[in-house]
């Protein structure tokens, strides 16, 4: 396969994307993949410095992007950034809500000890982030004619992982959000989907460094024998979903996980 086909070069030419949590990990990989496919990308995150790093990587390949400092739990900040991105490039076609607040350690969280503060620390990013991004992006995506709204879910939400019950519940809730919003926004020509990735991110690497035996056992569960790469595996799946090739797919929760979760 040639390089253009591998990167989806040109698939998203002229499109504008807004990616949350793009200062590292899966979000950075998605931003890079979207830019490589021709989209202009708003690289957003809570820390401008990490977003600047992503911007540097994209621009080094000739991609078009800009960094925006955004906390998705802040409704006003989200609206301001989305409007600014749409003004900068004249439109907004793609919103990828990837921002998440997960676990602080590799120690399983005991559900009986979870506090209201634990809930809100993660939920204000995942669920409030979904709401804020959706409400602020709607006018732009509706005007686009090829609007895409994508939420990054998790395999944790599919099988109800024991490690972090709050995260599992939030990612499970993303399913209901996406299915319902897809039905609501279909009339506007906007597709709404979730991707459930299994990727080798920095937090995953930290966890596996602390638990090497778990790493070996976990990798054996993958039919493809490896965890996904943020850019080349997860990012390219997002590119496909955002392209015209998959413009008839909506309301779906798509595991992009090397064949890990097959219970649907």
């Amino acid at each position, binding site marked *: 396969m040639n390089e253009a086909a591998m990167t989806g070069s040109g698939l998203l030419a002229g499109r504008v994307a807004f990616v949350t949590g793009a200062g590292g990990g899966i979000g950075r990989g998605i931003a890079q993949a979207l830019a490589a496919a021709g989209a202009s990308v708003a690289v957003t995150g809570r820390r401008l410095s990490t977003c600047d790093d992503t911007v540097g990587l994209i621009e080094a390949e000739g991609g078009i992007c800009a960094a925006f400092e955004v906390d998705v739990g802040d409704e006003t900040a989200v609206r301001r950034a989305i409007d600014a991105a749409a003004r900068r490039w004249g439109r907004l076609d793609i919103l990828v809500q990837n921002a998440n607040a997960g676990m602080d350690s590799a120690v399983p969280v005991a559900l009986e000890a979870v506090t*209201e503060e634990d809930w809100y620390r993660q939920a204000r990013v995942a669920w409030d982030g979904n709401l804020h991004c959706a409400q602020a992006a709607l006018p732009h995506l509706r005007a686009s004619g090829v609007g895409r709204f994508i939420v990054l879910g998790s395999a944790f939400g599919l099988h109800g992982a024991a490690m972090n019950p709050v995260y599992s519940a939030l990612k499970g809730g993303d399913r209901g959000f996406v299915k319902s919003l897809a039905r*609501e926004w279909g009339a506007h020509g906007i597709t709404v989907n979730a991707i459930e990735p299994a990727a080798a991110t920095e937090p995953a690497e930290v966890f596996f460094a602390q638990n090497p035996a778990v790493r070996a056992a976990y990798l054996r569960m993958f039919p493809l024998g490896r965890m996904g790469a943020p850019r080349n595996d997860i990012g390219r799946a997002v590119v496909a979903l955002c392209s015209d090739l998959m413009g008839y797919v909506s*309301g779906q929760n798509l595991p992009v996980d090397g064949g890990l979760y097959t219970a649907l």
Partner: protein
Amino acid sequence: MVVGFADSSVASLLAGRHAIVAAQGLAIGRLLAQGLRRHGARAIESDAPFGSKVDAESALADAAQEFDAVDLVMHAAALPTALKARPLDALSADDWRSAVHRSMLATLFCLQGAHSLLRKRGGSVVVVGPSTALVGAAGLVPLLTLAEGQRSLVKSAARQWGRHGMRLNWVGVPLQHYAPMLSDAPVPMVPELGPPPPALGRVPEPRTDVADVIAWLGSEGARGITGASFNLDGGDWMVP
């Protein structure tokens, strides 16, 4: 708090067993409690709001005082702000927080209270939600985000607390029974061109059809089942 005694007119899956029904003001709680009594359970209804873990533990402990031990906790939670149909862009931030966060926290606290009650001798927890959560519906983003969040939380709890002999499962019921005020909401139709769904030709009734399944989940016969989702829609969507 309402205490009821067993109805001797039907089979007794729960004879001698004790149940707490904590449905946070949802009318379906009363019907399901009646249904559990048909199976021989002594069932207490608790409508106390679960605003904190302490609230939930206290309310469930108060209810449990009526019994020597508790065998089954049935729970449902959706605050009134979650039980309105409107487009997401018309939703206020306050309504969103109440609909999804406060309702979800009520479920979290209820499960924690159930854990306090059941961790020593085991038991069954059943969380009830709208079956529409499995397919989504326009205008109901908050409710169905909440319901899918509750369903995943049940799975996580089942994985963590199985070692205590606790079994946790989720039961989906038709939206018109879960929230009668949403009977006119635009619930999607299954794309079936043959005999009109549901396959059974009727929508399952809470007091009988649904309560029978919950009673079974609380009985010895379901001892090998946890973390499962049971969609009781009479054979409508038949989700994978």
